[in-house]
């Protein structure tokens, strides 16, 4: 389940303005990745390039054995069926109500009967908490509802890859947390590859398996969550701590004098904040793509900052993890990957399962 996306030497410019160049990364199949970057670094452009809406100047995007930017039109449309995309404000069709919007891909690409379409649409609407709003028009609902409806529409064809553009923009923190939980649960359920573009540091710290950071027209870093959260690299450190101290300035990069002044003032990036535990699925499934907490740090000889991987209830997830996996294993083997599969014991069977919508209590940000 899930498809790997391999990006090689991707470069994009509009006219003379280079957006980013030589971006190379591999988004692992079935894992959740987050792409960060200061405003205006072309994160959305990157997302649109991944689905072939924008053609890069150079480079390759391999989806399986297909090189997306150079596919003939027919194959491109075929390949796009692997994707579900959630646009910034949902991009719902204004002339259709929510039900028809969400049913649209099913009616276009499948020969399902109308009753089956209805069943699937209502199931997805229930999943994003929109039951009862089927007959509303996109103009009549709030931004958050549009976003959730857009997510439901992106999900109806059971995509292998889900691209999400700023799920948190214009959403309150509670809804953002719920939406994050939906992503995690979905990933556990359908095993798709996720790429989320966001500005929300809380999301970036607790949701993904991998983090990437675009800065100054380049991919500054891409790798496992723990690698970036424990990184001493000034840009990565400043961004992931939402700090004013560091090389990123208000408009672009701080110049020499500003950095010197900062140093004279005695500003010190300080100790690295602790690494929060990752959010767990709330539907009792085990995510196939999840990395064991602390595994990267241990493998690379990095000592995580004190207090890392400890959740609200004071449990250390490095120690909890084997027990958690053991408690989930029989379920994960039989029903992970089956949509809607529930373990016999129901959700929350393992006492350490953090409550839905509550990211683990990472201190220090």
């Amino acid at each position, binding site marked *: 389940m899930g498809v790997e996306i391999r990006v090689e030497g991707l470069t994009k410019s509009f*006219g*003379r*303005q*280079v957006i980013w*160049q*030589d971006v190379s990364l591999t988004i692992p199949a079935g894992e959740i990745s987050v792409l960060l970057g200061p405003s205006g670094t072309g994160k959305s452009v990157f997302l*649109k390039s991944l*689905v072939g*809406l924008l053609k890069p100047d150079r480079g390759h995007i391999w989806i399986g054995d297909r090189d997306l930017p150079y596919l003939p*039109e027919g194959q491109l*449309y*075929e390949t*796009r*069926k692997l*994707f579900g*995309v959630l*646009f*910034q*404000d949902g*991009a*719902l*069709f*204004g002339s259709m109500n929510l039900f028809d919007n969400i049913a*649209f*891909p099913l009616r*276009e*690409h499948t020969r399902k009967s109308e009753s089956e379409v209805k069943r699937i649409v209502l199931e997805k609407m229930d999943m994003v908490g929109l039951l009862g709003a089927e007959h509303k028009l996109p103009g009549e609902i709030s931004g958050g509802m549009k976003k959730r409806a*857009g997510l439901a*529409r992106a999900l109806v064809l059971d995509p292998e890859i889900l691209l999400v553009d700023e799920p948190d923009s214009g959403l309150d923190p509670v809804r953002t947390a719920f939406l994050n939980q939906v992503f995690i649960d979905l990933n556990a359920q359908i095993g798709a590859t996720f790429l989320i573009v966001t500005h929300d540091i809380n999301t970036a710290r607790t949701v993904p398996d991998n983090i990437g950071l675009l*800065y*100054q*027209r*380049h991919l*500054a*870093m891409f*790798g496992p969550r723990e690698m970036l959260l424990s*990184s001493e*690299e000034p*840009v*990565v450190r400043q961004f992931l701590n939402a700090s004013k101290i560091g*090389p990123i300035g208000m408009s*672009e*990069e701080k110049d020499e004098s500003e950095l010197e002044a900062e140093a004279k003032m005695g500003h010190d990036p300080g100790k690295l904040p602790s690494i929060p535990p990752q959010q767990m699925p709330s539907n009792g499934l085990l995510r196939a793509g999840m990395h064991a907490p602390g595994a990267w740090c241990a493998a690379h000889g990095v000592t995580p900052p004190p207090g890392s991987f400890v959740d609200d209830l004071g449990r250390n997830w490095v120690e909890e993890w084997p027990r958690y996996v053991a408690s989930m294993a029989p379920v994960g083997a039989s029903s992970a990957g089956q949509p809607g599969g529930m373990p016999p014991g129901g959700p929350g069977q393992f006492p350490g399962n953090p409550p839905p919508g509550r990211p683990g209590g990472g201190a220090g940000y």
Partner: protein
Amino acid sequence: MSTPGIGADQRGDKGGGSSATFRKIGDGAANVVVREPGRFFALCLDTGRAVFQWPFQWREFVQQAWFIVSVTVVPTMLVAIPFGGILSLQVGGLIRQLGAQSYTGATAVVAIVREASPLVTSLLVAGAAGSAMCADIGSRKIREEIDAMEVLGINPLHRLVVPRMFACAFVALFLNGLVSVVGLLGGYFFNVMLQGGTPGAYLASFNAIAQLPDLLQAEFKAFVFGITAGLVAAYKGLNAKGGPKGVGDAVNQTVVITFMLLFVENFLISTLYFQFVPSKGM
């Protein structure tokens, strides 16, 4: 891990004053002369290919045709009546002095069927139908609906543009007929009621100069105008950017560009028509 290239080539584009201005002007000129027409032509070719994609979107076609009819019929009639009247007034006076008053009807038919009705049709198709279509497609583009459609594996040219283009051409055919009839009625009214012409002479001279190919070429023009208006509206709408103002700009440009193209097309088709179809002798 290092951050490759940080600090490199980031201030590369801020060239010096005058050369930057020249470059801007050069870019603008290249854009107007080469790039925009090129992109428009590419869109026309893509749309031409999408025409043969199965299945044709009949529903969208009917809805759009109805929509275009609803925004164009009344204005078309209201423009056509004074048009016929003014022709009668202008030509009628002259023709009376020449003593050929019985030919007023003939001049009215030639003027209205051959030239006036395609022109009035083009005005309405560009001004009312084209602008409305551009606004519709442009606002969809701004709301990322077009992108979403493409991601869902649906070609917007096939789904949105082709039915609109044909709806526009289809309605233009009928608008042209409508303008001819209403214009002639207007001319008749002014000639008979205000200039004291005789109804019999007006009607009898109808086919003195005019012939059937005149009507056919007018219908052909109307069809071409409809297709052109649809394509320009689609091109500008699909390339709208920069929020609501961008849509407004696109609509504005659609109307201006369509007008210019339609007048040029009208001239070209008329010229060719006179080359190929000999005028009727009296």
